[in-house]
């Protein structure tokens, strides 16, 4: 079924929409959550909540891309779930490795002001748009989908080390970009 037809079902408040969404994009959203949580049980929980989230938000929203829409909700829920957990319980498989970024960014303790996420998102979006395609893809696989460098390397035909090097360089560029944009 085409996305537009599924979305029409949401607008008609037809619960078949949820089933069709899960059928088509459930595995994708599940994987997105699992990458963050490192736990398939919790990822399943996230997926269910994400499907409910779509049900509750469409309408009024009318996503252009249902797949990404669901993945974003799933991602946000997974991050939220992770935050609630005790750090020790996050487990070795958890790939929420924000420490990579903290190389360049001050710790939360030093944060004196909070930036509007959307404003920051737009700046990062602008940064990402200027990256070479391959770097952009790798950056997104890492920081949107939380895939580890080894998995990314497998997808792009690169070694894990090469992916790490590319990410390192991209993070440095991001730092410069954010400095220029006044986020530092």
């Amino acid at each position, binding site marked *: 079924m085409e996305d537009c037809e599924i979305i029409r079902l949401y607008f008609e408040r037809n619960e078949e929409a949820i089933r069709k969404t899960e059928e088509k994009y459930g595995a994708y959203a599940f994987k997105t959550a699992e990458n963050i949580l490192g736990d398939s049980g919790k990822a399943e929980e996230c997926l269910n909540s994400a499907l409910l989230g779509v049900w509750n938000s469409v309408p009024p929203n009318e996503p252009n891309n249902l797949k990404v829409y669901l993945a974003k909700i799933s991602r946000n829920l997974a*991050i939220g779930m992770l935050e609630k957990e005790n750090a020790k319980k996050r487990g070795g498989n958890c790939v929420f490795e924000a420490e990579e970024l903290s190389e360049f960014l*001050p710790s*939360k303790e030093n944060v004196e002001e909070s930036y509007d996420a959307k404003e*920051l998102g737009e700046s990062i*979006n602008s940064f990402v748009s200027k990256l070479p395609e391959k770097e952009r893809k790798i950056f997104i696989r890492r920081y949107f989908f939380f895939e580890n460098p080894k998995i990314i390397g497998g997808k792009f035909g690169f*070694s894990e080390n*090469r992916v790490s090097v590319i990410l390192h360089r991209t993070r440095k560029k991001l730092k410069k970009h954010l400095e220029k944009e006044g986020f530092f």
Partner: protein
Amino acid sequence: MISEKEILSAMEFIDEKYIEESEITAKKNFKAKTSLVIAAALVLLLSVTSVAAASFFNTVNDGDVVFMEALGGYSGDHYNINFNIDIAEDADRFIHEYYVPTYLEENENWTDCGGEAGKYYNIMCYDNYGENLYAIFFQYPAWNYDNGASIGYGVPEGTEVSEGVFEIDGEELFCVEFQPCYDGFRGDPFGTRVVFWSDGYNLFVLETRLDTNEETVREIIRSVEKVSDISDYVTYKEMP
């Protein structure tokens, strides 16, 4: 100030087209690329001549981006050097008129390391940034051995050369290992061990004493992988 969490949260606002785009992975045949490196290296090991090298470099297209970086480090008896060149012009001229003299001038430790007998260079070329990898090892100046043979990389005739896959922490790395290289260096009998490896992107060279045990070599290799992440060690140079 901004926190890393805010960055990760802000990723939510990344344009959907980029998220979709990232799904389409430009999957390369890594094995083929690795084979190319191995094949190139083997060819060159067997017969590195200026003619062969020139012919080899002719595979690099004109107008490709020039890129050069050097990583270097010295720790005790161990040297590790990694430098890459993305050849844009005539490679032979680049190497002989620019690269080698520049590198010699700026890396005194390198000549110290090799002494009179041990100067060697490894060159890595990309026909585009990181897309295709070619490796060439050559020696400058050519070594002169008593047995008169300076074949391939410059390994004395009869030296056992092993090549193959070197595995570090589950990652396969192409490796060529020469030992011994030379036994007169520094007047000590230990000679040197030179290990080359590539992760498909960077080419690394490690020179150690022959009496360095394998575990130490592995430790060094791991550390070099980390060095490759330290951009402060990287210098970019313009093609003259």
